[in-house]
């Protein structure tokens, strides 16, 4: 892709604004299930999108290739493919490659060519760089330097599928009912100022991290300036891209535990910090003082996922919707409760999380929904 700005942001706006539907479901026992359910659920929130972007992220997708980086690449031309493949062969050991199967649909217009590669880092090429760091840099190389090529998925044992259309159409187009995973997230997009572009759909991905996002980040200007200091080049000028990079910085580069993400993105109010026990105060204050420029301000709901974990988070005063629900070992996160009930009418608990409170499902930690009493109380209070 030669100039992503022009494609993603034709009017050269400060940033791309969009509103959306988001949905995530995870079986915390690790049981894999097909994409049929999530396609139906996100389809239930069709009015929250405008057909200019839909996508899915799946974890536990490629168990047979779990140790290899799975790259999903879209091409707008054959030349791009030739160039990218030469680049990949130089930098990596190519384990396997195939064109991703699709089902032609009237609703899906002008789809790019989408290929999948399983790769092992060529240690000779990587030198002293760790595998993950090397992969991130090469993804940036392809996306910025090689024309007509865009890597939109680069993690292990996971994959992103996305494009222009309503999400249920994108799901059918990529035949996602034929894939299985233990964790799925999905997104339907309502961009206000950009024409649909396949790479601009959610989820956004870097390594095995994915983000789906509903919101507009009013702090975008400073979030972006802060990340630029660390060499992140925001090519697409979308809020979501910034969030993905911020997670990468905090977790991969600064080595912070995953649960600090919510303490940075939706930092507790100073007054609330003052009421915590002293040791916790010290930590929360240090995080906010140090990473104040990464506070995400303005309305948002996020579903962040990486291998074995899914986290839902809203802004500090919950200006965008998020409903959580559990049934057995399955955690649901959705913009609307109706979408959850569409695929699972009987739920054990349903609740609306407090603003800024992360809701996490993990393969390692047993699911712990709030007690039914507090759920009802919180639920009533919110209605």
């Amino acid at each position: 892709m030669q100039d992503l700005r022009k494609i993603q942001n034709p009017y050269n706006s400060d940033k791309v604004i969009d509103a959306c539907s988001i949905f995530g479901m995870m079986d915390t026992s690790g049981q894999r299930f097909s994409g049929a359910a999530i396609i139906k659920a996100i389809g239930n929130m069709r009015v929250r999108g405008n057909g200019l972007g839909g996508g899915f992220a799946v974890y536990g997708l490629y168990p047979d290739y779990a140790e290899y980086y799975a790259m999903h690449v879209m091409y707008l031309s054959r030349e791009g493919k030739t160039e990218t493949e030469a680049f990949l062969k130089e930098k990596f050991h190519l384990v396997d490659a195939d064109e991703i199967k699709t089902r032609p649909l009237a609703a899906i217009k002008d789809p790019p060519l989408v290929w999948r590669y399983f790769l092992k880092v060529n240690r000779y090429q990587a030198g002293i760089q760790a595998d993950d760091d090397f992969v991130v840099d090469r993804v940036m190389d392809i996306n910025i330097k090689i024309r007509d090529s865009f890597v939109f998925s680069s993690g292990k044992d996971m994959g992103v599928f996305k494009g222009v259309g309503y999400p249920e159409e994108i799901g059918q187009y990529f035949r996602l009912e034929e894939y299985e995973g233990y964790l799925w997230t999905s997104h339907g997009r309502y961009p206000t100022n950009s024409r649909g572009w396949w790479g601009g759909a959610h989820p956004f991905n870097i390594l095995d991290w994915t983000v789906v996002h509903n919101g507009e980040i009013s702090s975008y200007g400073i979030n972006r300036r802060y990340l630029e200091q660390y060499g992140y080049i925001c090519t697409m000028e979308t809020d979501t891209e910034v969030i993905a990079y911020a997670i990468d910085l905090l977790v991969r580069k600064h080595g912070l535990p995953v649960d600090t993400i919510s303490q940075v993105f939706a930092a507790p109010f100073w007054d609330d910090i003052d009421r915590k026990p002293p040791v916790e105060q010290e930590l929360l204050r240090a995080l906010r003082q140090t990473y104040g420029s990464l506070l995400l301000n303005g309305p948002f709901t996020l579903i962040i996922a990486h291998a074995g974990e899914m986290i839902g988070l809203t802004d500090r005063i919950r200006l965008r919707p998020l409903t959580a629900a559990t049934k057995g070992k399955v955690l649901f996160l959705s913009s609307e409760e109706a979408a959850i009930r569409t695929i699972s009418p009987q739920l054990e608990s349903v609740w609306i999380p407090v603003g800024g409170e992360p809701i996490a499902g993990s393969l390692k930690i047993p699911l712990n929904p709030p007690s039914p009493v507090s759920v009802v109380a919180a639920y009533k209070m919110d209605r």
Partner: protein
Amino acid sequence: MKTFIPSKFIVERDPARCIQCQVCVNQCSFAVNSYDAADNEVMADENNCVGCHRCVVFCPTNALNIRKNTLDYRENYNWRPEAIEDILKQAETGGMLLTGMGNDKGYKVYWDHILLNASQVTNPSIDPLREPMELVTYLGRKPDRVEIDPVTHTLKNAMPPQVKLNVPVMFSAMSYGAVSLNVQHSLARAATEAGTFWNTGEGGLHASLYPYGDHTIVQVASGRFGVHSKYLNAGQVVEIKIGQGAKPGIGGHLPGEKVTAEVSRTRMIPIGSDALSPAPQHDIYSIEDLAQLVYALKEATGYRKLISVKIAAVHNVAAIASGMVRAGADIIAIDGLRGSTGAAPKVIRDNVGIPIEMALAAVDARLRQENIRNQASLVIAGGIRNSGDIAKAIALGADAVYIGTAALIALGCTACQQCHTGKCAWGICTSDLALTKRINPEIGSRRLVNLLRGWAIELKDILGGMGINALESLRGNRLHLRGIGLSDNELKILGIRPVGD
């Protein structure tokens, strides 16, 4: 010698209203008004009038008005009245022209060419009456990253010292001697009550002000007046004063007349002696010398206090600021072209330095380019007038602002530019005990706290309108600014887009 300079103002006294109470006679410290007992009449020597309005405000019958003397010269753009009269003054005195306050020339005020953003439809504005809205700001060096102990899940790298501001506005350095003790008491009490800081200036810290130490910045300037170990440890921040916006490259001037017994004790100089700070700090002839002083002060204060370095905004301010951060400064304070003074050579005040808006934009951008922005907080000064200016400064990248003139105006100052005369009728910039008692610290601090409270409420409304509920999300967020009536180059330096784009 007969002066050829005509009076600047006309004092109008309505004889129907004047009751010959002589309040104006007593209030005027410039000896304009006088009472003729024989004729039972109050008269005015208009040549002395500075237009400070003290008499007007205190006249019980509203009998007074001060008008500009519109005496016209033959029109000549080059030889405007100010140029002519400055020459006359020098021809009559043979001296350097002294003045007070900040630059009063018509250089572009960039704040007035910047507009703020607000939310509509795609994100909601936030109502500060109903939702929390945070202005808390911590100044101080921030680490590159937080380290957390994976086992205990506690903080591994202790934070360097930080100071907390409840509102991102501090009181600028105004030394004891330049302003009166009552003014400093007003500032110190207000800073304490409002949860911010006041700055001693270079005149030391009077014994009665030590109790306000938790909200005090102590200054170390080239004259080292009143600097001793107890002083350095009295506040939370030690500020090395390299320069001042009103007089870059020039040291402070306190005339001997202002050095009273108390001033003398606090400054540790003889009564009546001129306190002339050298132009440079004589132990800082280069950047590595600054680093030595920064660390000498850190040693002297046990690394518990923040070290601020204050400079005037000059042409290559970005590179200088970068060097200051690398020299270990925890706070970079920059004072712009319109920064004020108690006394400065007029030619310097009027012609040296650059506007703070440009300096701020350049410094913030440079520190980010070099990835050292987190290593120091950025505080700016020089002509901040209202909460709109503050919001724009924060969005350009400032952590907080200093106000000097605005604080004095809250106390009564009318910016009449007579600070250097020591005759301030409002009792602010003087050490004449008959005048200094005009400031009551009780009332003075109330007026200052009110001002900060009003600005805080307005800042919250501005933030809420943008859909932001914490000040740190506006800080450096230049996307919320647009320029109007600015050239491409000005926009580029400010790092903002034009309106409509």
